[in-house]
Structure formats: structure tokens, C-alpha cells
């Protein structure tokens, strides 16, 4: 039993986690004919909490409750994995490590860079850009694109839909520009 736990606690190689993520597609289809997707959950939250008479939010979100259960599960699963099944080590490319070092980022023990993404710095310019603006772009962009990495890049591509490929390429273009030009500019602040 201890050996199994020891094995699970190591970081998993991509060829284990990738196929497992892919299996979420048939799992949700077989559980109840649900299309794999996460960003819609934020639309349902809007529809449930502040529909404000906007037609985009006028539908019965209770029919989509499964999606909210799914994301609640993600939160709990991540808590379990992080608390009991992880050694909190991550092997990052040394080039990136030395680049981030220049911006004062040296702590790799969390999923986000602790030096910049924390409550204390939330209301600094850097914090607002990294947390508030970044989050806003994720929510606005995924809804405008009608899906995110799960709905388009995994589910849509798996079902061989060309619009999903267009969306995925757009995600990558935005990401490349952002990571190479915008993020370094923010980190320099």
C-alpha cells in the first residue's frame, strides 16, 4: 500500500496524465451524455446569481447543475491531491528558472508564483494585472470563444470539429504573445 502511495505522490509524466484527462470525455458522456467543458460553469453562476434580465443568462440553470457539481469536484479533488498525494516538487526548465529569478520569483512550492500572486499584493498594480485583469480576460475570452481548453481543445478536437481547431489556435496565439511579451512586462513592474 505504501509503495502505491509513494508512486502516486511523485509528479506524473505527461503520458499518464494526458490520456487520463482524455478519458474524462467518455466518462461524462457515459455518465449522462454530458459534453466535457468547464467555462460554461461561470455562465451558469451568472444565470443563477445575477441574470439582470440579460437574454444570454435567461435559461434554467438548474438543468445545467451537473456542470457546477463537476467544478466543485475539481476544487475538492485538487485539495485532496495537493494535501495528501503530492510532494510539491516541480522540475522546470533551467532557462525559465533563471529568467524568473530576475523578476524575484524563486519559490516553486505552489501552483502560482507566491511572490506576486498573494493577498498582500492584491491591490498593487502587479497584483491587479496578474489576478483581476488576468481573470477577467479568462472569463470574457472563453465565453466570447464559446469554450475553453476543455470544451474546444479536448472535447471539440476529439470530436473532429474544425471550429475547435480555430479556437485552439487562437488560444495559442494569445498565449504566445502574452507569455513572451505581456507577462515579462508585468513581472518587471
Amino acid at each position: 500500500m505504501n509503495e502505491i502511495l509513494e508512486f502516486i505522490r511523485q509528479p506524473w509524466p505527461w503520458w499518464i496524465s494526458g490520456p487520463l484527462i482524455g478519458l474524462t470525455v467518455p466518462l461524462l458522456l457515459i455518465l449522462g451524455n454530458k459534453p466535457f467543458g468547464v467555462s460554461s460553469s461561470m455562465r451558469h453562476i451568472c444565470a443563477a446569481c445575477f441574470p439582470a434580465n440579460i437574454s444570454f443568462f435567461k435559461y434554467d440553470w438548474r438543468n445545467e447543475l451537473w456542470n457546477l457539481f463537476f467544478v466543485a469536484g475539481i476544487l475538492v479533488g485538487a485539495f485532496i491531491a495537493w494535501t495528501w498525494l503530492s510532494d510539491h516538487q516541480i522540475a522546470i526548465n533551467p532557462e525559465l528558472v533563471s529568467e524568473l529569478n530576475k523578476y524575484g520569483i524563486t519559490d516553486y512550492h505552489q501552483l502560482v508564483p507566491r511572490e506576486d500572486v498573494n493577498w498582500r499584493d492584491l491591490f498593487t498594480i502587479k497584483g491587479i494585472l496578474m489576478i483581476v485583469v488576468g481573470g477577467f480576460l479568462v472569463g470574457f475570452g472563453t465565453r466570447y470563444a464559446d469554450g475553453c481548453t476543455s470544451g474546444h481543445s479536448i472535447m471539440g478536437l476529439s470530436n473532429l470539429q474544425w471550429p475547435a481547431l480555430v479556437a485552439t489556435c487562437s488560444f495559442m496565439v494569445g498565449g504566445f504573445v502574452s507569455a513572451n511579451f505581456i507577462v515579462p512586462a508585468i513581472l518587471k513592474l
Partner: protein
Amino acid sequence: MRLFISNLKYLLAGLLFGIILVKGEVVSWFRIQEMFRLQSIHMYGIIGSAVITGMISIQLIKKFGIKTVNNEAISIIPKKYHRGFIYGGVIFGIGWAITGACPGPLFAQIGSGATVVIVTLLSAIAGTWVYGYLKPKLPH
């Protein structure tokens, strides 16, 4: 209450997915920076092998007419293309690299104890709302 029980299975599915996201380091801001700097194969390997697995699964479901656990037919409704896939896609990509998270990983980062990401999530929900508000005026 019935609604609650009938949806519990999706909580379990999400729980498994959340464990995989953390163990696969898909939710790590550092891995996302690496990916967009072409410094590691990790994320490409994950997305690529996930798509291949999903593709094979859907083909098998279609070929053998596999039904849901409640014996209902499985049908996938394709999303209708509009120009927002490009505009919104680029906007999301920019946010993805900044936060190191697409929507699923936002929930996972919070679960891992990075509680300030709650603000990121609330802001993403606000972004979703603003899209709904502006939708009639945006090019599609």
C-alpha cells in the same frame, strides 16, 4: 434533493479530474510559462495525448452505439462557429498565460490552497457577465 443526488456522480467525476490536473501539473503557472516559451514538451504531450484518447473514445462510442448508464443515447452537439472563436480565443489566451490557468485550473488552484485565486475566479465570472451584457454589440 433529488436534483442533488442525481448530480453527485459529476462531483466524483470532477474530483478525479481535479486530482489528475494537480498530479499532471496542468494547473501550474510555471508549466504554462514553459509551454508558451517552447521550453518543455510537457503541456503539448498532455494536450496531444488527451485529444487522441478522447478521439478514440468517441469513435468507439459511435461505432458500438454505447449508451449512458441510464440507457440513453449519446449525442454530441457541435458548437456553431462564429468570429468570436478567434477574438475571444486570443483574449482568453492572453489571460491564460497571465493567470497560468484556464477555467478548470482556476478551481484547482483554489483547491490547492492558493486562496487569492478566488479573486481571479470572481473576476473571470465578472468577465463572463460582461460578455453576456455586451454580446449584442460584439462582432460574431
